[in-house]
């Protein structure tokens, strides 16, 4: 167990270093000359050179790389950390709602196979799987905010501000709902497969033969059996869910890491862009690591693969 964990941690660190190197190289190769960009109209070769010298971009690249890493730790990531709370909130709420819905759907499908419930939810799952998530958010917004006016038009900010807590919570509902609906299809399909496997097993047959009512069978035996695959599945979906959150934030100008990314892109703040992308990369690699370690804990075959 420990050797596997050590190996995975080393792999994760190596990947991180590679990612940071790639980002750094992209910045140096494609970022253009900062002195030139900053001086704009007033640029002359001499002034550009002087500014570059002062900015430190004329030093050897390894030196600049180390310096970049250093300033990251010394506060370059502060803006990213500031926007983490709403991102995590979207993540947890959206993922949580999606999970609840997926469990409900999977239970309904497994307990009524072949009926209209099964067919309708399966079709619904397929449809939601095929719909672009950003489009779904747009449509929901159109229906609930623009037309029916049940939910506010303004996007939620970093914290309940002018809208007050109620308005802010209402505004949060749309992105959360979009996230949930996007994840439901994949999760319910997995869950349903796991539950069907459990339903076909012997102990379920025994429970039914004992006369246990169906819903107790489901609750006591089937769900418990499906819990492990469920946890693995949730774990695997973390990175995907994170990118969904970021995508939604990007597209709908929400506050969060996606919002930070959007500002960086719009205002051509290359440094901020790179730092933010690095943070996103770090979070994804970290969640992958945690997921892998948990999977190894649960399933010994993983450790020796």
């Amino acid at each position, binding site marked *: 167990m420990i050797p596997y964990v050590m190996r995975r941690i080393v792999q994760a660190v190596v990947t991180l270093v590679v990612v940071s190197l790639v*980002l750094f190289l992209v910045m140096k190769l*494609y970022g253009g000359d900062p002195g030139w960009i900053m001086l704009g109209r007033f640029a002359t070769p001499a002034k550009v050179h002087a500014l570059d010298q002062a900015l430190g971009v004329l030093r050897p690249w390894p030196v600049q790389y180390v310096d970049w890493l250093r300033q990251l730790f010394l506060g370059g990531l502060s803006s990213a950390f500031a926007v983490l709370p709403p991102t995590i909130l979207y993540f947890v709420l959206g993922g949580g709602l999606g999970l609840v819905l997926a469990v409900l759907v999977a239970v309904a499908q497994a307990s009524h196979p072949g009926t209209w419930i099964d067919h309708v939810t399966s079709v619904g799952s397929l449809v939601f799987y095929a719909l*672009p998530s950003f489009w779904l958010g*747009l449509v929901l917004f159109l229906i609930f905010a623009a037309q029916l006016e049940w939910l506010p*038009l303004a996007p939620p900010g970093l914290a309940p501000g002018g809208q007050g807590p109620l308005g802010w919570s209402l505004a949060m509902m749309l992105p959360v709902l979009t996230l949930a609906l996007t994840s439901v299809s994949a999760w319910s399909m997995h869950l349903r497969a796991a539950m069907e496997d459990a339903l076909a097993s012997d102990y379920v047959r025994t429970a039914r033969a004992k006369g246990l009512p169906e819903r107790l069978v489901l609750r006591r035996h089937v769900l418990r059996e499906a819990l492990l695959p469920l946890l693995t599945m949730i774990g695997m979906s973390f990175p995907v869910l994170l990118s969904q959150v970021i995508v939604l934030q990007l597209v709908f100008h929400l506050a969060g890491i996606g919002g930070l990314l959007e500002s960086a892109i719009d205002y051509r703040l290359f440094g901020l862009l790179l730092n933010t*992308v690095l943070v996103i990369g770090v979070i994804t690699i970290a969640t992958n690591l945690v997921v892998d370690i948990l999977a190894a804990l649960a399933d010994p075959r993983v450790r020796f693969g």
Partner: protein
Amino acid sequence: MLAPRLRPTDVWPGGATGSGTWQRLSRQPLVWVGVGLLLCLLLFAFAGPVVWHRGVGIDVAAILQPPSAGHPLGTDGLGRDYLYALMRGGKLPILSGFATAIAATALGLAAGLTAAFAPRWEAIILRTADAILSIPPLVPILIIEGFFGVSIVTLVAAVVRVHWPSTARLVWTKSLVLREMPYVDAARAAGARETEVIRRHVLPNAADTIIACFATQFGNAVLFIALATMLGAGLGAANNWATMIATSQQYMYDFYWWLVLPPGIAFALLIISVFLLCEGLRRALSPRAQAGGRLP
């Protein structure tokens, strides 16, 4: 739900061999739905603009009209007919989606088979695949978008680079099982070259994995390219379904539903049709897979 309900007494025509595949395929109503849908979409995107050719110019008098007899999908912000825009906008998502999916599946297949049958390459291929898989797929796309716009070719290449590892891993795991099969040993003992063995024995039995991979790749590719185009990494002024969604965002505060709904629905129909086709194909090629392993 997607399978015709099978009872233990049912017998698939043709059994588990190749013959009878067409019967199994044609028996499933959903396959015909998928085929029909895909054909309709292809006609819509490629033949449509030729047949329905109106409202190309900017007509300020007719901006933002809801659907009517003359404009079945209404008009957009510049007075152009939206149905025509939708038709013209289909070529890119469809072509780039197929191109990316085919390339990613082919590359992943090659990598997975090589890893399973050429032990020298196994470690390198798997390491590379894992490395690519651990970098969030959004990252390279965002970098590209943030720094420079690219052509559709570079975008397709970038998406393929990000997506081939998942197929490679799946093919590799399946090949590991298949290469231990007795018929592989028999073929080798009979003197067949390794490539022959792969072509004749491994590939047909890995078919359902490959097709499932293709279906997933297609869905991911289409949505990914749509996202990248929406974030600006697309192509100049070329109009396609994704840019239509992006521009319709400007109008999201008023209820211009006819601008928002059609492109998304089009995407969904495209992905669903390919998905249904692939599912049907999978079931037709290996009846055991369809019954969840409970058929003898």
